[in-house]
Structure formats: C-alpha cells, structure tokens
C-alpha cells in the first residue's frame, strides 16, 4: 500500500514515512562515516608519538628532564560520560512528555514526568555540563604541555574530541531553541516529530561518545 496524496503533501514520502525523519537518519548514517574516519585516524596514530605527553604512560623529556605524567584523567571523563548518558535519559523523557501532552496528569509524579520544559532544560543543562568537563580537560591538557601541535596523539585526540564537542554544542543550541519554543507557545503532539528528530541527533552524539570513551580513554 502506498502513501496517499494527502500524506505526501503533508511531509510524508511515498514510503509513507516522514521525509524529515528519513533525512535525519541519512544524516546520522553519514556522520557514522565521519566519526569512523576520525576514530581510525586516532587508532592508526596511537602509540606512534615520538615525544610525550602520552595518554596512559608518564614521559621524561630528555632535554629538560621534566617528567610529564599520564595525561588522561579517567575519573573526570567517567563523570562526564555518566552526565552524557543521563542527558539521553532526560531527552527521551522530554520526547515522551511532548507526545503525551494531552494525557491527563493526576499526580505530582505524572506532572513532573509530563513536563517537557523540565526535561528539555535538564538535557540542555547536562549537555552544557559535559561541555564544561571537556573545556576543563582541554585546559588542563594544555597546561600540562599537550596541544594539538605537540605530537600525533595531541593532533588526533583534539581533532576527534573537538569534533564531538562541536556536535554537542550544536545539540545544546538546538535544545535551547526548542525550549524557547516550548515556553513561547508550548510543544504538543503535533511537534513530536521535530522533538524526535532532535532527540535522534542527541542520542547519536551520545553513542559516538560511548565509542570514544572506550577506544580512546579506557583501552591502553
């Protein structure tokens, strides 16, 4: 059975699916390949830096005899990973709240779970917190002597995590825009597709970090 003319006219393709959702999945597919190229570049250069600082081992500069400690801070990154995972939870709760806007809410718990403003704000706040962790990490790395020009590790690390951070930043701006619309006129079931598309982007940013956390931070 094919889509009706009315379906196509209202943003549905001949597959019967909304074209914007197909577009975001195609975009996410292309983003998979972008991050695969960045991750493989990091992995290829891993362990090939001639000079430190190194991610998991201390290094002594032979000319100055200055000792550089292992640069990665696993406890801090574990916290930021937890923050990003919880932002995904807040995002699905925001989407559920928008989809169920018209469902009557009898208890305080129902009203909290059903507040799209609360969950959109929480997601944006957690995203901003993740970015703060990343800013702290980048700053401390620079102070410890690792910049994007120091060695192969620095170049590939800052490029990969910087690209991811830029994606998170775009996601936070998108969330704040949606939150503004929610305050202005309220988001309801008719806006569910727009929130769903934003949620897909946000979860994609989360799954990329799941891969980065394991491949870059945990595997020595």
């Amino acid at each position: 059975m094919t889509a009706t003319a009315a379906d196509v006219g209202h943003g549905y393709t001949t597959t019967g699916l909304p074209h914007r959702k197909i577009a975001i999945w195609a975009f996410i597919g292309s983003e998979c390949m972008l991050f695969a190229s960045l991750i493989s570049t990091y992995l290829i250069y891993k362990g090939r830096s001639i000079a430190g600082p190194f991610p998991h081992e201390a290094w002594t500069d032979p000319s100055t005899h200055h000792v550089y400690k292992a640069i990665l801070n696993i406890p801090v990154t574990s916290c930021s990973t937890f923050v990003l995972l919880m932002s995904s939870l807040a995002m699905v709760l925001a989407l559920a709240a928008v989809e169920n806007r018209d469902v009557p809410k009898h208890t305080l718990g129902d009203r909290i779970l059903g507040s799209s403003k609360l969950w959109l704000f929480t997601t944006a706040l957690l995203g901003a917190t993740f970015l703060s962790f990343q800013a702290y990490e980048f700053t401390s790395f620079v102070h410890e002597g690792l910049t994007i020009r120091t060695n192969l590790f620095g170049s590939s690390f800052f490029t990969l995590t910087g690209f991811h951070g830029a994606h998170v930043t775009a996601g936070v701006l998108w969330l704040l825009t949606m939150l503004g619309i929610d305050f202005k006129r309220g988001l309801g079931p008719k806006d569910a597709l727009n929130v769903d598309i934003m949620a897909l982007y946000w979860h994609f940013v989360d799954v990329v970090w799941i891969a980065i956390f394991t491949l870059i931070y945990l595997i020595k």
Partner: protein
Amino acid sequence: MSDAHAESHEAHPTWSTYWKVALILTVITVIEVWCYYLKGFPETAYFVPTLLILSAVKFVIVVLFYMHLKYDAKLYRALFTGPFLVAMATIIVLMFLFGKFAIHLSLLT
C-alpha cells in the same frame, strides 16, 4: 496512509523502560571503569575484548531503545546500519593497512 507510516508510529517504550535502560547503561559504565582499575586485568588478553563488548552492548541499547530503532520502521534501520557497517569496515580495513593489526602481521615495519 501506508503500512510503513503506521509502522513508524508504533508505541515507544514506557517511562519505566527508559529508567531501566539508564540504570543498565550506568552499571555497564561502572563495570568498564572498574575493569580499567582492576589490578593486572588491563595487561591480560581479555581486557580489550571485554571493553569492546561492553561498549557495543551500550551502543546497541541506546540505538534500540532511546533511538527507537527497535520500534520504528525498517527503512530507518537500513539507513543507519548500512552506513554503520561501511564505517566499521573502514576502521577495520584501515587498521589492517596502517594500524596495530598491520604491525602484528608484519605488514609495516
């Protein structure tokens, strides 16, 4: 309205499912970090496969439940898994050509 359209509007998970998924993701992350600090374990041959499997489980859980691929239309699944498989193949091939795999196989000196 088409079947695919109807399929794309299947029920999403409930709030309790979302909370359970968040708990599982947190527990797996704790296990990953615990593996990193477990004395002697990072030096064993099991360390990397363990972390890769745990990471893959987290990845699949988020994609299936939070991105709703388990519940949405098959076309979305194809649009994601197709490029994802190409991306994985790219990483593996590049690792064989230039990375650690090439060194292990003495393809690079």
